[in-house]
């Protein structure tokens, strides 16, 4: 796979914007609440991009994403708890969380990815519940996680937002390169028709595993950031219900569209927090009534998601780079098929 950055110019601008935003947060020009909101946006998008690789690209209907996020979160939190939150230890913690989530995904994926469609969905959902139960009972092995009472004592590293933002950019670049590379096309072919892909010589098992492990590592990475943003971990934060959140984001943005995932993930956090700000105290309880209504309305008006399968121009390959890629996922196939 050839590594390409879509546009160096844009990347530099984005990097500068991230640095300026972090500086503004540091100098408290932007208050801690907005810092929390934008950091959470980055985390939600990274995690959703992971599910986008698993479900959007390769069509594997996985419903255990929150569990992998939890594995990453607990791992990273345990690492910084013993090693501190200097930049390099924080980096080790994040990598450790992502690696552990990816490793568990590999072990679980070996048997479980043989299942198809909804059976895979329910098996991964079941796995998610098993992981939550293990978190709840984890204090018997690692007392510091405090099991069902929630893990405390996580310290906040400096510049969390910048970390999240840079990792988000990296996550987008990796996903984008994967999407328009030869393995990426193999994944899309599995999504469109697994049998045909197999007949065409695509190593279906291998590519499904790659997508699952990579996607779950994204979740683990997001989990590490989550742990060091919210500083408190409770098993209920990684319950199966939470696995629906990245699923909603990926589908709302448009299955397989990186652009869609980024936009939908950002908008999702903005709507939930926006309702908190807009609704006065007397009707605050309507927050989670309005949200599902928006969700249903959105799905009814645009069942293929915001962006369908299309990408923003900046993420599409230029002519010379990958001539055959965009034709593969046409609107028709993406609309008509289900993993």
């Amino acid at each position, binding site marked *: 796979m050839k590594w390409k950055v879509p546009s160096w110019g844009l990347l530099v601008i984005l990097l500068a914007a991230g640095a300026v935003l972090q500086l503004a947060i540091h100098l408290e020009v932007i208050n801690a609440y907005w810092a929390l909101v934008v950091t959470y946006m980055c985390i939600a998008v990274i995690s959703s991009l992971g599910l986008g690789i698993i479900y959007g690209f390769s069509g594997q209907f996985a419903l255990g994403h929150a569990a992998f996020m939890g594995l990453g979160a607990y791992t990273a939190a345990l690492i910084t708890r013993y090693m501190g939150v200097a930049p390099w230890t924080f980096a080790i913690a994040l990598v450790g969380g992502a690696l552990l989530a990816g490793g568990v995904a590999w072990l679980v994926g070996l*048997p*479980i990815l*043989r*299942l*198809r469609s*909804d*059976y895979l*969905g*329910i*098996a991964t*959902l*079941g*796995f998610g*519940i*098993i992981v*939550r*139960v*293990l978190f*709840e*009972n984890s204090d018997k092995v690692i007392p510091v996680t405090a099991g*069902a009472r929630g893990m405390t004592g996580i310290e906040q590293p400096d510049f969390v937002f910048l970390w999240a933002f840079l990792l988000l950019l990296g996550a987008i670049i990796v996903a984008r390169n994967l999407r328009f590379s030869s393995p990426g096309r193999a994944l899309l072919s599995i999504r469109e*028709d*697994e*049998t*045909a892909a197999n007949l065409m010589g695509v190593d279906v098992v291998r590519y499904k595993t790659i997508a699952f492990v990579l996607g779950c590592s994204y979740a683990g990475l997001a989990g590490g950031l989550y742990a060091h943003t919210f500083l408190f971990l409770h098993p209920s934060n990684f319950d*199966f*219900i939470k696995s*629906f959140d990245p*699923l*909603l984001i990926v*589908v*709302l943005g448009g*299955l397989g569209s990186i652009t869609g995932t980024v936009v939908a993930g950002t908008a999702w956090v903005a709507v939930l927090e926006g309702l908190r700000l807009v609704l006065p105290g007397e009707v605050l*309880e*309507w927050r*989670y*009534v309005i*949200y*599902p*209504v928006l*969700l*249903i309305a959105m*799905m*009814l008006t645009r*069942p*293929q998601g915001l962006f369908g399968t299309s990408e923003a121009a900046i993420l599409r390959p230029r002519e010379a780079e990958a001539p055959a890629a965009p034709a593969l996922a046409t609107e028709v196939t*993406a*609309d*008509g*098929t*289900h993993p």
Partner: protein
Amino acid sequence: MTYVLQQLLNGIQLGFVYALIALGYTMVYGIVRLINFAHGDVFMVGAFVGYFTLRALARVTLAGASWLNGILLFLLAMLAAMAACTLLNVTIERIAYKPLRNAPRIAALITAIGVSLFLEYFSSLKFVFGPNYITFPSPLPAQTWEVAGLRISAIQVLIAVVATLLLLGLNYIIRYTKIGKAMRATAFDRDAARLMGINVDLTISFTFGLGAALAGAGGVLYVSAYPRVHTFMGIIPGLKAFTAAVMGGIGSLPGAFVGALIMGVAEVTAKSLYSTMADGVAFLILILVLLVKPSGIFGRAEVEKV
């Protein structure tokens, strides 16, 4: 030995209630290939309607003997719940799922999640059901009988009898009535069914209604045994029933029933051995079953059409 059998009985009690929910899941899945995540919340509405009916009838006496009176009132509450759930689910289908019938399948799944969240949060507003934990009044006296060393409670008998009757009724509808035949035909091949003159829309609505009626009855039975009515009570039983349906082979009616019994017994067994790990064990069994039989116990191995 008696202890093991006693626990088995507890598991079967739970399994019967799961079966009533699981059948709704599996019928809807069989006919429109939709995991209706809102089904557990329809079950919750059933429990509430049953509760409100019983409360409204609190001063009514239908029979002289108190236990007979209790059973009659209970049956009335259950019928009210079944009717209300049928109406609710048919409405939900018309508004939220029907427009998406030709859209990607995932779109309807997302609206199902939306409907589920809406039912949970909307019904916990004060002017709907309210957020309180409500204790469901026991329909029968706390009577137990000793049979060959086993302790059998009145509630267990009630659940077994009512659930069995409902399941037999369902079996009759699906096997021997015209609409049942239409349901099977639509599930088998929707387009062919339409060509044969079957009103597919009506059949689908009927399926949603029938599934909801069972869920409504299940809701009232569930809170008779585990007497806490609450707007979020449907999530976990709904999930477990759905899991049971998948384990049995989703789309298969006997599969849903067997899966539900396995689920109930597995959960109770796990709980009696190591109570805080029960959910984990139940789902571990699910995964193991799926690894051995990837389409569930009674599921046909799906050949994907090329």
